[in-house]
Each structure stands twice: as structure tokens, then as C-alpha cells.
């Protein structure tokens, strides 16, 4: 039987808090977390709720999560301060497939920067790094990496005005070769990136998001088509994505009811 390394429920105290503009906060913890970029942990705020978060910084004895303030949980999370207590379980999921010799592009949208940050740190400097957001203040980690980055915003307040897909299309059109594209952001954005890659026969890796309960492939809350997002994913490659008819179309609500993605996200708002 395989050893399960991610079963323990661990309580940690916030070691340091970093405010990343008006929309994001990053919480650091002193803890040696075994981890691979793309994996996630379940974060419990006692008395509030428990939600999945990716790891945005990782070193031998420290890791961090970055939270975008949205609903009840994330708004509470960004008010946490040094010394405050959270529970974690994990890491869960598969993580990105990294081949150091490959020529790759990374396409981040909004908070989708978070899971890509630790990936980017393992990639060569000539990586094509595209980063978009609604507007300037939603650009997460604008100064973090040594690597050059192509920025864009919906309103043009930072970098080029437009969508990440346009930037990626330009690069491809300019004759640049990619062995693989990694992307994380709103599902509609990832869907467009995937389609672009399909058109150009570029393998793609996408990190999906669904409502989660167990995080380890038992409860079924997170299923997307026949895929179990928390265990088979959250990262899926092109061959898997082609088989997921619910990609960019359907998701399950908390009750298990299958709805359109739009309805899913508006439910998540409440």
C-alpha cells in the first residue's frame, strides 16, 4: 500500500504577512512542506471554513500562500496577522510536469500567478512569461522575478491593453517555438489558451479549480467530467483536457448540482 504523506492535520502560526497591493496578501509560515509546484493545501481558519490554496513561495523551511480577497473566507484570510493560527492539510494534487530542457511559455491570469510563481522559479531564464490581470492592482508579484515578463491588463493600466492570449499568439506568430505552455487563471482564459495551443499543436498544462471538500479524492465534490480535480489534478495536460467535456462549461455546486460555469462562479460570490 502506498504511504500517504499528506494525511496529518497541522496547526501553524503566521510567521510574516506581506501585503501585495490592495487585492492580495501573502502569509508566510515556517514549516518544511514537501511540495511540487502546482500542488495545493487545504487551509483551515478555525471557526470560519476550509479552502484550497496553492503555494506561492517555497523554500526548505518556509512556504507561503497568497490570497485574493473575494468572499467571506478570503476576506478573513487577508486580515490574519503574524501569530495567528491556521490549520493545513496537504500538499494534495499532482503538480506541474517540469522538463528543465524544454522551451516553454507561462501564462498567468490574475491570482493564477500564485501557483505559477514557484514553477517559474524552476524554469530557465529564456522562458516566455506572460502575465495579465483586470488592472494594475491585480498584477500579483510585479517585481518578484529576474525573468522578463510580458504584461497586459484589461484596461491597459499596466503593460499592454488586452488579453494574455493575444500576447501568446504574437509570440507564436513571431516564430518562437514552445515545447509546452503552462497556464493558470480564470477558467475562460485557460480555455482560450488551451484552444490556441491546440491550434498550434503545443502541449498545454492547465490548473483547474472546483469546490473541494476532502482534497484527497474521496468525497467527489470536485469532479469535473470523469476527472477528480483534487487528485488527478489540479493540473491537467492537453490529452486529459480534450476528454473533459465540462472544461469551461460545467461545475458542481456544494449540493452536487451540476450547473453552468457562470452560475458556479456567481454562487461562489455569495
Amino acid at each position, binding site marked *: 500500500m502506498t504511504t500517504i504523506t499528506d494525511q496529518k492535520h497541522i496547526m501553524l502560526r503566521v510567521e510574516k504577512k506581506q501585503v501585495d497591493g490592495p487585492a492580495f496578501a501573502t502569509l508566510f509560515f515556517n514549516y518544511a512542506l514537501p511540495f511540487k509546484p502546482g500542488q495545493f493545501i487545504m487551509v483551515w481558519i478555525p471557526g470560519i471554513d476550509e479552502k484550497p490554496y496553492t503555494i506561492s513561495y517555497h523554500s526548505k523551511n518556509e512556504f507561503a500562500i497568497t490570497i485574493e480577497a473575494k468572499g467571506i473566507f478570503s476576506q478573513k484570510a487577508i486580515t490574519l496577522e503574524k501569530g495567528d493560527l491556521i490549520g493545513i492539510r496537504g500538499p494534495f494534487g499532482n503538480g506541474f510536469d517540469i522538463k528543465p530542457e524544454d522551451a516553454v511559455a507561462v501564462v498567468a491570469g490574475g491570482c493564477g500567478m500564485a501557483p505559477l510563481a514557484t514553477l517559474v522559479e524552476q524554469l530557465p531564464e529564456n522562458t516566455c512569461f506572460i502575465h495579465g490581470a483586470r488592472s494594475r492592482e491585480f498584477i500579483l508579484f510585479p517585481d518578484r522575478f529576474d525573468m522578463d515578463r510580458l504584461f497586459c491588463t484589461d484596461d491597459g493600466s499596466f503593460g499592454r491593453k488586452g488579453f494574455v492570449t493575444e500576447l501568446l499568439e504574437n509570440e507564436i506568430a513571431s516564430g518562437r517555438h514552445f515545447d509546452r505552455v503552462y497556464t493558470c487563471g480564470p477558467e475562460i482564459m485557460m480555455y482560450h489558451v488551451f484552444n490556441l495551443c491546440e491550434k498550434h499543436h503545443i502541449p498545454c498544462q492547465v490548473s483547474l479549480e472546483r469546490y473541494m*471538500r*476532502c482534497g484527497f479524492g474521496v468525497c*467527489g465534490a470536485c469532479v469535473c467530467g470523469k476527472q477528480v480535480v483534487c487528485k488527478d489534478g489540479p493540473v491537467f495536460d492537453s490529452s486529459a483536457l480534450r476528454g473533459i467535456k465540462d472544461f469551461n462549461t460545467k461545475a458542481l455546486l456544494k449540493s452536487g448540482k451540476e450547473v453552468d460555469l457562470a452560475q458556479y462562479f456567481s454562487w461562489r460570490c455569495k
Partner: protein
Amino acid sequence: MTIQFLGKTLKNPMVLASGVLGNSNDILKRVHESGCGLVTMKSIGPEPRDGHKNPTVIDLGHGMINAVGLPSPGYLNMENEWEDLEKREFPLIASIYGGSVKEYRMVAEFVSSKKPDFIEINISCPNSEKHGMIFGINPQSSHDVVSAVKKVINVPLIVKLTPQAPDIGDIARACEDAGADAICAINTVGPGMVIDIESKMPVLAFKKGGLSGPMIKPVAVRCVFDIYKAVKIPIIGLGGITTGEDAIEMIMAGASLVGMGSAVRYRGIDVFQTVADEIDTWLSDHHYTLEDIIGAAHKEDAS
């Protein structure tokens, strides 16, 4: 090995437990294709229900604790699902729950019209404040709900029991008398509670939750043993099964089919095929058929 169970042919004696991955046709199909003889849908209730807040499922190392809280779209809000399922090519149990005999009957009658191969009534879930449990610990209540449901459905009826019953054999007998075609045992054990000492709070949002996985196997085996003594109808035995040897133990206690839920965490979705193969190997090494060993632990001088 091919198995006959209440008139249906199953490719092996493995059953996916209710509440584990079973919330869409796609995933049920995948579990079937990856090697599970009979799959169970997540229990369906009379009304839409979100279930409890997270944390709802926590691993404890030797098992897990959950208080998912019977989330359900409600039986009337699953049209796409039912449509997909009617086209299925695999044997299916539809699991249902209710808060009263009337609700059980209402849900069962509707679900029966959607033609699952079997209906399982969950009279045992300890996680909800209003639903289920009471029917599973009192023989008279069990009898009432089973006979009411039996009257309105056209498919065989399986009753899922809780180990919390003071005498689970009594409950099983009441169900058999009321017309149940099979017993499924057990649901989760406990309830239990895990308190985080740093925050001084129960970790599950619902505070209490049911235990499953390896640590409950001895309770499950005892329950199936007691039920086998009490009734003649077949038993789906589950609770803590993760290996072929666990399954053989359950079969010797009296199970005809063996269910697994938590095992998916420990050995992946393919665990059904893996365990089926392990059972086969054990049987052929020992020159037995499956039938030879059902209830074998009941013979006084078995060795």
C-alpha cells in the same frame, strides 16, 4: 469471476460505497470501467441541501472522519444526471435518504422510475441533524420505512444499516421481514470528534463526524457476522476494506459483495480491480470458489 446478485450479472463482487465519488454519471462510469462490479450513487435526498461547511473530511492516518452532511441537489433537480444515467451500460445502485417515511417513499418512487438496477435506502447516516439515523437503530422504525418504500418501487431494495444499532441483527431481521432484498452494512462508525488543541475547536465544522477506513474494519466485520446470523438475504459488506485479504475476511463473515469507500484514498480508483484480483488470486491459491467462503467463519470447526 462473474457474480449473480438479485438477478443481475456483475463482473466482480466489488461495490463502490455511496458518498464516495458517486456524484456524476461520468465518474460512476469511470469507477465501473476501472474495475468495479457495482457502483453506488451518492445518497439523494428529498430537497436541495448544501451539506455542512468545511472542514468536512479529515484523514486520521488509520482511517478518516467525515461530516459532509448529506449534500444533495434534491431528487427533482437532477434531470441531466438521470438522463445520462438512463443511457448507462453498467449496474447501478441509487442511494436515497429522507427525514420521514413519507420522504423516503416519495424519493424512492421517483428514483425507481429512473430505472437504477437497485435502490439502497440509507437509514444510517449519522451526520445530519434531521435525517436518517433514527430509522436504523429501532427495528420497528426500520420495518416501517422498508415496507413503505418496498411498495412503491420496481427494483430490488437494499437497506444500508448503521453500526450504532444496539443489535444490528434485529434491525436486519426487521428489514428482511419488511421485504428488503439485501442488506448493506456498515455506514460510518461513531460518531467521533477531533478537537484541535491549539484553537480549542472541533476540527470538523459540524463538530462530529462518522469514522471510516481501516480502523473500523473490526466493527464492520462483527456487524456483517451478526447480520448473516440473523437473515437469509444477501449482504453487501463494507467498512475499512482496502485489500483482498480484508475482502476475504468480510466474505467469511457473511458478505456476498464487498464495498469500499475510503480505500480510494489509500489505493486509488483502481482499488476495485486490484482487490478483485487479490481475491481471485487468494481463492485460486486456496482452491476455493467465492461461494465456498461466504459465511465460512460461522462454521464451528472451520479450520
